[in-house]
C-alpha cells in the first residue's frame, strides 16, 4: 500500500491558550515495500503524523460535523489536506476506518504496558477477534495466534497459556508486537520499538523487524531517535522538524547533509561523522553510511595487504 500525504496540518487544543501546532502543511509519500524511518525530536510532529496513518487522528474532512470551507472573495481556498493509504481515502467520511486499522498495524512506545489479558493467547487474539468478519472459530484464532507468536520468535506451546505479566521485559514486548501483527497488516508502524532495551534487546528487535518486513508486512515504518539504526536499516528516512518534513531521502543521500541535521539539533550516524571528518582531511569516501560499507570503502583505500581477515560479530543492531 502506497501512502500519500499532502498538506497535512494539525493543532492540539485549537482555540485555547495552550494551542500547539504539531503538523504544518506536511507532504510525504511512502512507497509500498519500504523500510521507512522517521526521525525527529520529541515534539517535532512525527508521532502526530504517524497517528494519522491509521485514523487515530482524523482529517477534519472525515468527521461527521465537517463543513466545507467557503472561499473568501478574491482569495483561493488553501489546498485541502489529502491522505491516502492504498485504496483508503482518509479524507472521506465514508471510509471504513476499522478496515483501515486492520491493514495498518501500529505498535506504540513501550507496547508491553498495553497488555491486559490473563494469558498470552488471549492478549494476542484480541486484535484478531476484533477485526474478524463474524466470529472466528477457536481453531482459526489459535492458528493465527500460533503464527503471530512464531513470527516474533516465541513458541506457542510454551507461552500461550502463561500470563503475559510473568514474562521478561523483552518477551512482553514481543507478545505486544504479536498482538498487532496477528491481523497480518500490510503496513506496520512502530514508534521507538527499541526504547528502554539493553544493547542485546535492541539488536534482537531490529532483527525481528527485518524478519517481519521480509515475511509479514510489506511496508515497515519505524520512528526512531537512533541515527545509526536508521543508517543501517532504512530504505528511506524522513526528518521531521517543528511540524514540517525537512527532508525525505535514502540514508546515502540524507546523511551526506550531516551539517544540516546537526543544525536542526539532530544526531548523525557515526559513519557520517567519520566521513565528514575524512572529508575535512581531503578524503572523499562514497559510502552508503552502513557500518559494513564504511569499513569496506576505507579498507579499499588502504595500502594493499594480503592477510585481510573477516571481522568478528557485528555491534548492536548491526546487520551484515
Amino acid at each position, binding site marked *: 500500500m502506497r501512502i500519500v500525504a499532502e498538506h497535512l496540518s494539525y493543532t492540539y487544543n485549537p482555540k485555547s491558550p495552550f494551542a500547539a501546532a504539531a503538523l504544518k502543511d506536511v507532504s510525504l509519500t511512502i512507497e509500498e515495500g519500504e523500510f521507512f524511518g522517521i526521525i525527529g525530536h520529541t515534539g517535532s510532529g512525527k508521532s502526530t503524523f504517524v497517528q494519522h496513518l491509521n485514523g487515530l487522528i482524523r482529517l477534519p474532512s472525515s468527521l461527521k460535523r465537517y463543513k466545507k470551507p467557503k472561499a473568501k472573495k478574491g482569495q483561493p481556498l488553501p489546498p485541502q489536506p489529502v491522505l491516502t493509504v492504498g485504496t483508503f481515502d482518509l479524507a472521506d467520511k465514508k471510509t471504513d476506518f476499522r478496515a483501515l486499522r486492520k491493514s495498518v498495524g501500529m505498535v506504540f512506545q513501550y507496547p508491553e504496558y498495553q497488555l491486559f489479558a490473563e494469558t498470552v493467547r488471549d492478549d494476542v487474539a484480541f486484535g484478531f477477534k476484533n477485526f474478524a468478519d463474524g466470529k472466528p472459530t477457536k481453531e482459526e484464532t489459535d492458528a493465527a495466534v500460533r503464527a503471530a507468536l512464531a513470527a516474533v520468535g516465541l513458541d506457542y506451546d510454551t507461552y500461550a497459556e502463561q500470563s503475559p505479566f510473568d514474562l521478561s*521485559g523483552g518477551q512482553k514486548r514481543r507478545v505486544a508486537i504479536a498482538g498487532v501483527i496477528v491481523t497480518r497488516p500490510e503496513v506496520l508502524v512502530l514508534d521507538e520499538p527499541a526504547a*528502554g532495551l539493553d544493547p542485546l534487546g535492541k539488536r534482537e528487535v531490529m532483527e525481528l523487524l527485518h524478519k517481519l518486513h521480509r515475511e509479514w508486512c510489506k511496508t515497515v515504518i519505524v520512528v526512531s531517535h537512533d541515527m545509526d539504526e536508521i543508517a543501517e536499516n532504512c530504505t528511506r528516512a524522513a526528518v521531521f522538524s517543528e511540524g514540517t518534513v525537512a527532508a525525505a531521502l535514502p540514508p546515502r543521500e540524507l546523511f551526506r547533509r550531516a551539517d544540516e541535521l546537526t543544525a536542526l539539533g539532530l*544526531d548523525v550516524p*557515526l559513519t557520517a561523522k*567519520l566521513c565528514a571528518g575524512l572529508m575535512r582531511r581531503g*578524503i572523499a569516501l562514497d559510502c552508503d553510511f552502513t557500518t559494513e560499507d*564504511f569499513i569496506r570503502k576505507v579498507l579499499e*583505500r588502504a595500502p594493499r595487504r594480503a592477510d585481510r581477515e573477516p571481522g568478528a560479530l557485528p*555491534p548492536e543492531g548491526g546487520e551484515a
Partner: protein
Amino acid sequence: MTAQSGAAFGRFGLRGGSNMKAIEFCGVSFRYDEESPFAIHKLDFSVEEGEFVAVLGHNGSGKSTLARLSNGLLEADEGEIRVFGTQIARKNLYDVRKNVGVVFQNPDNQTVATIVEDDVAFGAENLGLAREEIGERIRFALQAVGMQQYRTAAVARLSGGQKQRVAIAGVLALKPRAVILDEATAMLDPRGRREIVEVVSRLNREEKITVIMITHFMEEALLADRAVVMNRGEIVMQGAPADIFERQEELITYNLAMPRIGYICNRLRAGGLPVANTLDSETLAEEIARCVS
C-alpha cells in the same frame, strides 16, 4: 588491571589522598525472594569519594538492585554496606539518604509536585529546614542543573530531559555527597540523554559530587573515571572505560556490545589498517587519514 585502576584513580592522588570511601559493599548478597536467584551475589565493590563510576550490565544483571541497596531502599540479606564510613542500618537511613541521592528511570514517576520549585523543595522540606535555607537550596539545585528559568513552570509541560534534570535538582536539594543515576537516561531521547550526561559530569567536576551512573548506553560510560560491568549479580569487569571497551568478546558474553566506534576500530585493524584505538570520532577520522595516505 591494577595499572588501569591506578590510572583511573590518578586524579584523586592530586587531591591529597583522601581515601574516604563514598560507598563500600563487603560480601553483600541480596535476593528478592527465597526461591529466586541472587540479584546481588557476594559483592565487593567500592567507590571513592569524588569518583565518577559507570555501572554497565544487561537488563537483570543486578545493577538497579545495587542502587537500591546503596541508599537503604532495599536491605542486604548478607554482608555490610557502608556509606561515607557509616554502616547502613534501619536507624540511620535518614542520614544515609541525605548523603546518597538516587535518580530513577521514569521521568514521569518521581516528581511529587505540580510546580518545579515545589518539587525541588520536597526533599529539603523533609529535612525540616528553615524556609530561607530551602529557598537557597532550590536556587542552588536548579542552577546546578541549568533549570533556573523554569522555577515556576509546571512539571507536566517539560520535556523528558528537563523532567529528569528537575529530578536531579530534587536530589541535590538534600545536598548529598553522592548521586546514583539508576538508568536515568533510559527513557530519554538523544537530546535528553546529552543534557543529563552533561549535568552529572559537571556536578562531578565542579561540585565534587561522587557519581554512580547506571546505564546500558555504552557511550555514556565514556566520561566516567571507571567502568564496572555487572553480570548475574557480580562484577565481571572493571577498569578505565577505554580499556573495557577493547575487550569485545568478553562484553558480548555479558550480553553487552562495545560502542560502534570500537567495533569499527577493531574491524579496520583486522582488515590491515593500523589505526590506534580510540572512542572519539574525530580522532578516528584523523587516524584513518594518517593510515590511508
